[in-house]
């Protein structure tokens, strides 16, 4: 699959958050880096239509899309507390599927399958607010996975995790069959990716393989 930004700008009030972004993305593993306030969170939110362009278009496989982007692209937030809607794990996982109007059997199968795949079946009947940070992030991911998106966007998914959960969560991301876009300040985690975008002041200032983009980014922070 490929996603294309055609002359996309986003303005919030008087402020231009993203300016004239034109780019075509078809790689499986894409990393996004940039300083705080650079516009990368807004950039990430364009992928599944949480944010909509003030001007310009989003194209999915060459076709302009607005409302349907979220059917194809899932989104995992930095803080899983903001993503978990229901008090019980199982109910929460069923939420997105209910919105897709799937049958009870299909819902059941998808939840069981996704939980087994990530090895967290035992969390099924737990209260969501009693889970640890790492467990919550896993549940947030499963809630998106069960909807079987073709691409998943992660906005700083490891910021709130300890070293162990961070490694585990990144390994999980790397094993996903879907296309993934990961926004992160954790540069080491993006080393094995196919393509890195560096966003600064609302524009893409560097675009290429991890070695060149990440090393330049680190160098630019040191002067």
């Amino acid at each position, binding site marked *: 699959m490929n996603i294309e930004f055609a002359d996309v700008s986003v303005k919030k009030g008087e402020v231009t958050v993203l300016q004239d972004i034109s780019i075509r993305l078809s790689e499986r593993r894409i990393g996004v880096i940039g300083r705080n306030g650079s516009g990368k969170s807004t950039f990430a*939110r364009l992928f*599944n*239509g*949480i944010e909509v362009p003030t001007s310009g278009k989003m194209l999915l496989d060459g076709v302009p899309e607005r409302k349907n982007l*979220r*059917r194809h692209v*899932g*989104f995992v*937030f930095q*803080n899983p*507390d*903001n*993503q*978990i*809607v*229901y*008090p019980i794990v199982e*109910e929460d996982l069923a*939420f*997105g599927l209910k*919105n*897709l109007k799937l049958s009870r059997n299909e819902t059941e199968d998808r939840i069981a399958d996704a939980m087994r795949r990530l090895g967290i079946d035992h969390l099924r009947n737990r*209260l*969501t*607010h009693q889970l640890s940070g790492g467990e919550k992030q896993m549940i947030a991911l499963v*809630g*998106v996975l069960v*909807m079987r998106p073709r691409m998943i966007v992660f906005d700083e998914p490891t910021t709130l995790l300890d070293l162990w959960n961070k490694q585990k969560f990144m390994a999980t991301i790397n094993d996903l069959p879907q296309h993934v876009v990961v926004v992160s300040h954790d540069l080491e985690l993006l080393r094995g990716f196919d393509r890195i975008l560096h966003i600064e002041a609302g524009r893409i200032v560097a675009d290429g393989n991890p070695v060149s983009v990440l090393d330049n980014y680190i160098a630019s922070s040191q002067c």
Partner: protein
Amino acid sequence: MLTDLYIFADSPLHRTRPGIKIGVLVLFCTLLFVFEGWVTLALGGVAVALCLALSGLRARHVVATLRPAVWILLAIFLVQSYLVDILFASFVVFRFAVLILAATVVTATTRTSEMVDGILAGLQFAPSWVPKNQIALGVSLCLRFIPLVLSVFHDVRQAQRARGLDRNLTALLVPLVVRTLKTADEVAQAIHARSFD
């Protein structure tokens, strides 16, 4: 915090559908007011006592339910005794006790989850302009938010204690409200991202 006032037992009342229990309760209260008098009240009292016995509630449950109302009931009793007479004062206070205990029978024999499911099931029959999905979402979200708000509250209180402001309600409430509003905004985005509309 989120344990309901349900009292575990197996009785015919526990097995009755919540909708029926609520309907009977409303009817019961209305009858007590429409046919006002010692006879109806006495009959009502006997009926409630029977239900209490049937549902397996103990005397300590009855005391626990009435205790929060004791002071205001005592005040009403004194005022009525002064204004009218002791007989009338007893009537008014006794009627409150019967009403509160009748409601307790329903609360103690129905789980909150059953009650919520009952509401949501009832919504199926509501006319189409009622936003059923939004109501269901609101109920679930609120149950999800209560522990979240309490934990933010706890965090904020610790942070303000470090600055000696933990008895200052404004210093506690402003960060609590602003932080949870931001959370709520992102929750709304997340709900949208998961195809709800």
